[in-house]
């Protein structure tokens, strides 16, 4: 089976995210005063060949830990389409 996996990678909470800050200022300048705590990360989508959704998720988790996210600076979450 082929599973579509969505990976979200965001800068770890507590670490300065200058991109998020710049976008927050821009939103505020456009009048969106209600926006705050903007964080900017990455979305990665991939197809994973696996026998089950659980197996696909485990494989994607290993990929995150080895390459897709930097454990020093980033947190990730993933979702397997079923």
């Amino acid at each position, binding site marked *: 089976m082929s599973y579509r996996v969505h990976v979200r990678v965001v800068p770890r909470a507590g670490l*300065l995210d*200058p991109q998020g800050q*710049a976008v927050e200022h821009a939103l505020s300048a456009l009048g969106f005063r209600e926006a705050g705590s903007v964080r900017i990360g990455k979305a990665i989508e991939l197809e994973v060949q696996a026998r089950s959704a659980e197996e696909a998720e485990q494989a994607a988790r290993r990929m995150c830990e080895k*390459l897709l996210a930097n454990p*020093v600076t980033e947190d990730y979450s993933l979702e397997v389409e079923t």
Partner: protein
Amino acid sequence: MLRVAVVRFPGSNCDLDTLRSAQRVGTEAYFVWHRDTDLKGADCVLLPGGFSYGDYLRSGAIARFSPIMNAVQRHAEGGGPLLGICNGFQILCEAGMLPGALMRNVRLSFVSRPVSLRVEQTDTAFTNQYEENALIRMPVAHGDGRYVADPETLRRLEAERRIVVRYVRPDGASADGENPNGSLNDIAGICNGAGNVVGLMPHPDRASDPALGPAQGAGFFQSMLTWDHIAKGAR
């Protein structure tokens, strides 16, 4: 003659400057390609600056899986001198050979200018030719140079005196966080516990030819020649 391997990745762009800097101090320096698996008898290894793999995903994230990196890791584990400059520093952090990571500059812009630095740790393979606390100027040229690490790692780096170079004001006073990229503790470069692995964001390779200006970075390359004569057991 000391044999120095300069590793070329696709996207390296300081490879020739680094090679020339090593040759200028009287070493036999040569290139190895990232797909090679053998360092060809290198005594020292240099990872030059640039944008390996276009900085895709994260700076240095893909280069660390290049075939040559297994040999580089074995070289360093055996105590061999290994210097990562700029992108080379990013690769060493991604590979876990030095702690921490380099993130996007605090003001988001690419910073390319000379900076003032204090050489705080001189018992390394690349700084033993400097006086402790020497003030030097070298260029930086990077977009992802903000050094970060968790508080425990920072505490350990400071306690073990592994901050090799720190950003300072031109008169040598503490930068107090007012550094070019927002690095924690004004860290510009660090080393491993044994001092044989050093990584830094500034470019000694761009400050080592007297014809092009003050050559205050040449000491990084000269230090390779004298590292063996320093008591390694002293640390």
